[in-house]
């Protein structure tokens, strides 16, 4: 460490720093001449390496370099893009860029309207939510309504007029149809037939009826593949006329369901789910809780909610209903049943009779007319008519028996009297009963025109295919289950050359008015000139036409000549509308295809559902392909175990096996319509189930059905709950906030939190689809689902509970990001892409995410979703229009998850700041919460002690899922309660609750 050398280096540096530019080298040479420098060079390894530079000069050099580089960069600055931007000279009224507008309209399903609010961003419909003012919605929506937005933008949707498969035009169609109409005019329409689906639209009904007035010999047929013939025939049987039963589940203390899925399907189901859930929402006091007895064949979400579920074949329900009715001394009914024991039956009957006028018997849409009539008879006997059940006129324009109507059309076609058939909607070639041979009969008609949103199976057999407008593109009207009419208004001009049924009818038989004129003129004629504008505006604004609800009718039961069916043994097949794609009309909807079906959690196809015992008897395992032979036709489907399914029976969902659905829906699943006969549309005995030796992969989102004794869904009985209200909290050790080295983080602004009431949740999936639509969640396809890569931010877990594999209880649990205060995902992210915000949200920064998946591994709830591949379709133009502009579209390699709909929080925050106030309770409604028919989801600010969510969090039933891991989840669950009759032992044990801490 000689001073000499140190000084030399300093000296050198000084000298070097004096040199500038070209002289630098000169001075270096000069330096080299010095003795000190030579000595330094001679020394290969300077001992005092540490004295080499404190770094300042080097850093300064780098700084200058950096600056000059950036200056160089500036000179090459790019020009502004040369696109011409024309701003609004006059801004359209109400449109604020970036802010959505909501329009009231209605989604029509099976003819019945559900009021919806369609969200529009700059003129593009981007989402569907329920209309709180509409009786069938009450603000909620079901999967079909929400997913219908995807159909609007479906690139496979029919876009042009086709004539025998070739591209044509509306003009050409008009020219070719007019001479034929003239011919028919001379024949009084003897050869003219119109086939529609179930029609409640007053305007369309009026239009068809005026056509029929012009062509008195013409006929109007209706066919709905999953229609309500049995409801109509049931009322006819007992009351002598077609009536519409309307239930008030909110008034019913005791409910007996005869294979009814009133929560999941059928007119008014969204409303019924709400009314039912209102009687399950208990806070401390269980007195108000209803009790549901369900006799059920194919397990449904309704059966899942039951306090006592009796599984039986669909054909045994009648016998069961007879036994119940006979115990109530319903006139002319006698019989016993062996599907439930005598004690159960007597308790059930007593329970119903003890709640006269406050109970309800409801029969399933697929049960026979006799069962419906028995249900009505029991309601009459129990004094429920006028309180829990009311009867109104049918809401259809022309209530008919659809099966008979289609049969008549087919026989007319076969006899050659039909010259001209207009099919306005529907896909009868695909979904008509197999024995009618509709397709063959259709070939005998010389002119068939088919109006439909897809170029489907029926289009292929028709001479003309006419593209139909989506309901968000057209004017129309329709009625809800209670008769309330809604005027449907379009949000966007038709994307393609499409027309609505109104326009097509008017083009053929009238004077080619627009559908707005048609609908408007109908309502003008109905309500009169005076104050029409105000009426029209109010009706459109509200989404309901005031005063159109049907009022209850006085009914009186006739004495019925009961024609009971004879019970047959043997393997039974049960046809059910698919819980995701219904009768097949949503087959090309990727969201719905990928939506795990209620209960079975299967996606992308239909399977042959059988009970564990039946599977065992047939020597089957999951995914073994079976052939189902019935009425001479055979289809193949993979077998799948469905606990809770009746033995000696197989359920197959309708809607699959499409051949012309589109790119999404073609060629998946089996076409169950091939086995379906017009005489037995819902269940039939004598199906031959054979193993084929083949195997087929089924994409199920939940492979494991047991909770493994873990305290996940916590449930108890209402009686036990009354004694131990805090039971849920004691099922697992919940660490207190104090169990930490650090003081808990203070959230002094908002503290967002969610609650999910497991007692209200039915597992209907509406939240999943609502989330998918709101958050631009991609569809990944069957292969990816099989591989466990579905992207749903909120999922509905389904567990089977109890010791009886054949007859378990079902427990549903929506699971989404818990926004843990101690989020395990956060510390492990190497790039800090997932962090906590000041309001307690666990947020994802997509831009920052590199995709290590460590966060997902460390998430005990496994709610994080990874874009393993490029799942988002960013190419298809139509989908670009559909996206919610408030939510980023994620690309490959990025992790994503529930955000508590942070975009909605932001929107509310902006509004609140503008008004200089705090966000009000209830102002932020997450997408899942808004869709939920049962209102099981609560959301709000925990720091607001009066908020609904704060109160729900304080509910004794509230518990944190896996809170024993000290994750401190912001989402709480409210434990599930069942309300079994004290004299009937629930056949299942709840999760062992011996840990009372």
């Amino acid at each position: 460490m000689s001073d000499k050398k140190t000084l030399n280096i300093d000296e050198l540096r000084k000298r070097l720093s004096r040199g500038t530019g070209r002289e630098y080298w000169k001075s270096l040479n000069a330096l080299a001449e010095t003795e000190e420098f030579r000595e330094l060079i001679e020394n290969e390894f300077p001992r005092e390496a540490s004295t080499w530079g404190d770094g300042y000069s080097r850093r300064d050099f780098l700084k200058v370099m950096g600056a000059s580089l950036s200056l160089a960069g500036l000179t090459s600055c790019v020009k502004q893009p040369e696109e011409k931007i024309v701003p609004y000279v006059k801004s359209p009224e109400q449109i604020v860029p970036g802010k959505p507008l909501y329009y009231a309209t209605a989604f029509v399903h099976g003819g019945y309207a559900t009021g919806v609010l369609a969200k529009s961003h700059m003129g593009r419909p981007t989402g569907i939510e329920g209309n709180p003012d509409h009786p069938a919605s009450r603000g909620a929506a079901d999967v079909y309504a929400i997913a219908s937005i995807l159909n609007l933008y479906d690139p496979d949707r029919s876009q042009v007029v086709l004539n025998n498969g070739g591209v044509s035009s509306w003009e050409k169609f008009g020219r070719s149809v007019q001479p034929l109409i003239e011919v028919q005019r001379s024949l009084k329409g003897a050869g003219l037939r119109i086939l529609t689906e179930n029609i409640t639209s007053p305007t369309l009904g009026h239009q068809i009826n005026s056509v029929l007035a012009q062509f008195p010999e013409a006929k109007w047929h209706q066919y709905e593949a999953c229609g309500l013939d049995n409801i109509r025939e049931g009322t006819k049987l007992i009351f002598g006329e077609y009536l519409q039963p309307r239930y008030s589940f909110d008034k019913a203390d005791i409910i007996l369901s005869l294979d009814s899925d009133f929560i999941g399907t059928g007119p008014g189901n969204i409303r019924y789910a709400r009314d039912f859930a209102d009687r399950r929402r208990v806070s401390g006091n269980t007195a108000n809780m209803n009790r549901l007895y369900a006799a059920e064949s194919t397990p449904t979400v309704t059966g899942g909610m039951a306090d006592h579920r009796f599984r039986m074949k669909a054909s045994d329900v009648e016998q069961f209903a007879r036994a119940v009715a006979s115990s109530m001394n319903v006139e002319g009914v006698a019989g016993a049943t062996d599907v439930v024991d005598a004690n159960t039956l007597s308790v059930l009957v007593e329970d119903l009779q003890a709640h006269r006028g406050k109970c309800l018997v409801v029969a399933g849409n697929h049960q026979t007319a006799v069962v419906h009539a028995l249900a009505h008879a029991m309601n009459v006997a129990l004094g429920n008519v006028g309180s829990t059940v009311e009867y109104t006129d049918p809401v259809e324009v022309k209530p008919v028996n659809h099966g008979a109507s289609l049969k008549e059309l087919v026989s007319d076609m076969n006899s050659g009297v039909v010259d001209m058939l207009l099919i306005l909607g529907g896909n009868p070639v695909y979904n008509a009963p197999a024995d009618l041979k509709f397709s063959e009969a259709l070939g005998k008609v010389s002119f068939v025109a088919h109006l439909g949103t897809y170029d489907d199976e029926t289009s292929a057999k028709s001479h003309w295919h006419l593209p139909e407008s989506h309901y968000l593109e057209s004017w129309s009207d329709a009625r809800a289950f209670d008769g309330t009419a809604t005027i449907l208004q379009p949000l966007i001009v038709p994307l393609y050359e499409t027309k609505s049924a109104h326009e097509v009818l008017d083009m053929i038989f009238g004077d080619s008015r627009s559908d707005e004129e048609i609908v408007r003129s109908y309502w003008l004629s109905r309500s009169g000139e005076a104050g029409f504008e105000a009426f029209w505006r109010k009706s459109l604004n509200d989404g309901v036409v005031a005063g159109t609800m049907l009022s209850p009718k006085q009914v009186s039961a006739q004495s019925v000549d009961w024609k009971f069916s004879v019970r047959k043994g043997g393997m039974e097949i049960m046809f059910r509308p698919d819980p995701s794609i219904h009768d097949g009309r949503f087959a090309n909807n990727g969201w719905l295809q990928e939506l795990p079906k209620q209960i079975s959690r299967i996606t992308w196809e239909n399977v042959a559902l059988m009970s564990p015992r039946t599977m065992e008897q047939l020597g089957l395992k999951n995914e073994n392909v079976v052939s189902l032979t019935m009425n001479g036709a055979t289809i193949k489907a993979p077998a799948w175990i469905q606990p809770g399914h009746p033995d000696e029976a197989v359920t197959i969902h309708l809607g699959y096996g499409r051949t012309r659905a589109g790119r999404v829906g073609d060629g998946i699943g089996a076409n169950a319509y091939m086995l379906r006969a017009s005489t037995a549309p819902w269940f039939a005995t004598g199906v031959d189930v054979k193993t084929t030796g083949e195997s087929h992969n089924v994409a199920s989102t939940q492979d494991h059905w047991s909770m493994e004794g873990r305290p996940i869904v916590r449930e108890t009985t209402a009686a036990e709950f009354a004694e131990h209200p805090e039971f849920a909290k004691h099922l697992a050790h919940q660490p207190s906030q104090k169990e930490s080295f650090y003081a808990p983080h203070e959230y002094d602004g908002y503290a967002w939190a969610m609650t999910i009431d497991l007692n209200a949740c039915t597992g209907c999936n509406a939240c999943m689809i609502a989330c998918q639509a709101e958050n631009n969640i991609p569809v990944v396809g069957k292969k990816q689902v099989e591989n466990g890569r579905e992207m749903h931010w909120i999922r509905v877990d389904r567990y089977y509970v109890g010791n009886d594999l054949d007859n378990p209880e079902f427990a549903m649990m929506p699971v989404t990001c818990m926004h843990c205060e101690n989020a395990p995902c956060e510390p492990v992210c190497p790039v800090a892409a997932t962090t906590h915000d000041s309001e307690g949200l666990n947020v994802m920064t997509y831009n920052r995410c590199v995709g290590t998946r460590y966060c997902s591994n460390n998430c005990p709830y496994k709610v994080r979703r990874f874009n393993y591949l490029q799942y988002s379709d960013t190419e298809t133009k139509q989908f670009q229009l559909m996206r919610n502009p408030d939510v980023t579209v994620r690309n490959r390699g990025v992790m994503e998850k529930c955000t508590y709909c942070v975009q909605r929080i932001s929107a509310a925050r902006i509004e609140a700041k503008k008004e200089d106030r705090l966000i009000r309770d209830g102002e932020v409604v997450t997408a899942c919460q808004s869709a939920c028919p049962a209102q099981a989801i609560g959301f709000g600010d925990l720091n607001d002690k009066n908020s609904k969510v704060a109160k729900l969090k304080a509910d004794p039933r509230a518990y944190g899922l896996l809170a024993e891991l000290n994750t401190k989840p912001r989402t709480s669950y409210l434990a599930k309660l069942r309300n079994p009759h004290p004299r009937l032992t629930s056949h299942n044990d709840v999760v062992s609750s011996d840990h009372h801490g």
Partner: protein
Amino acid sequence: MLFHLIITDKTVAQHDHIAELEHQPLVAKGESYGSITEKITNDVLETKTPRSMSVTLAVTSMLLLVFVLAIGAVLLKGPGVWGNNNPVGWAFEITNFVWWVGIGHAGTLISAILLLLHQHWRNAINRFAEAMTLFAVMCAGLFPALHTGRQWLDYWLFPYPNTMGLWVNFRSPLIWDVFAVSTYFTVSAMFWFVGLIPDLAAMRDKSKKHWQKVVYGVLAMGWRGSAHHWHRYETSYLLLAGLATPLVVSVHSVVSFDFAVSLVPGWHATIFPPYFVAGAIYSGFAMVLTLMIPARRWYKLESFITDRHLDYMAKVMLATGLIVLYGYMCELFFAYYSGSLYEMFMMKNRIFGPYWWAYAALIFCNGLTPQFLWFKSVRTNVTVLFIISLIVNVGMWLERFVIVVTSLHRDFLPSSWDMFTPTIWDWGLYLGTIGFFVWLIFVFVRVMPMISIFEIKHLLPWRGRIIDTSADAN
């Protein structure tokens, strides 16, 4: 200063300890300074590639193509080409990463720790083991780099000043990994290269072709074998050994933190760091044996890599294998003693669940097989030892597979449980890295002296008594 003391001590000790060598000599009789240089340099400069090696090279070259293809697929399409899914976010790629890092442990252990512990027998195998380490770490590093969803942004895992104003998350074990593995690679590479310099000079001097002289000459960095050079060399080598020593322990400890820091049952265990380090050394020695036994035969190096070397390595394997087995037993005990529903289920699922075969095979490979090494006859039987080394390699891969996959596939909520099935690209990348690795080893033995020429001379029993003038520069 500490190291300075060791230097002097070591240099003296090294010379003296030779005399104490028992039984078999570490270099066969009849070898001299000259013959050693001749033999080892000739293997590179003169010997034609043995046929068996050409065949193997052809196979590994094909695997190298698979390797390129597999990397291309995952870069182009994303990690979705693999079988990973929602509960199983990590599968083959992290299994392979840990496996390769483990293999990379033998080199540094042999080079650094055994050097500091005066285990001179290491001189015959350290060069080879170091090369193996480097190549293994290269393979290892590839997996975390490729496993991300957006591989082109991997550099975000390095803390560098950036316009985003963002720092990495220092709480994440993945960041620790980045530091641990890159440090390990850097130090190992330095160590290897510094150790090569005197031999590169020997190669330069023995080369007959001009281009060889140039290439080796450049790499030798002007080594002339002066006392000055040797002094510098010894100092730096020892310093690097000192630097590398803690790394042997730290790298795999840090890798184990990837698991131990998480809350996944089966990962969240305090025993992981020592258990992983032992496993790493275990697998590293197994891999050294797997590679060295054939190489020794093909290049007839029995006089340098003697049976005694193999015996020593087998003993290290036995010792580390027992630690690993102890680790397995601890896991069982922890699961039971924790009283946690999830931990107990995890263990049950490992043993009896759908991946039971992996666990059973793992216990067979890693727990039972090494017990044969208690017998000296096994330790000195080259064929049996080779087979055992292969089994241990498989076993150590299975261990990581069991830890990574069976813990993830069934964690807390049964609704999320799923199975992992590897795809062709999972296997492709794994086999590809093996191809890449063996290919690199083959290239290495063809272009570099695979045994440290000057260090093995220390092992000559008559060293210091005979002055061999032919080895002028060494």
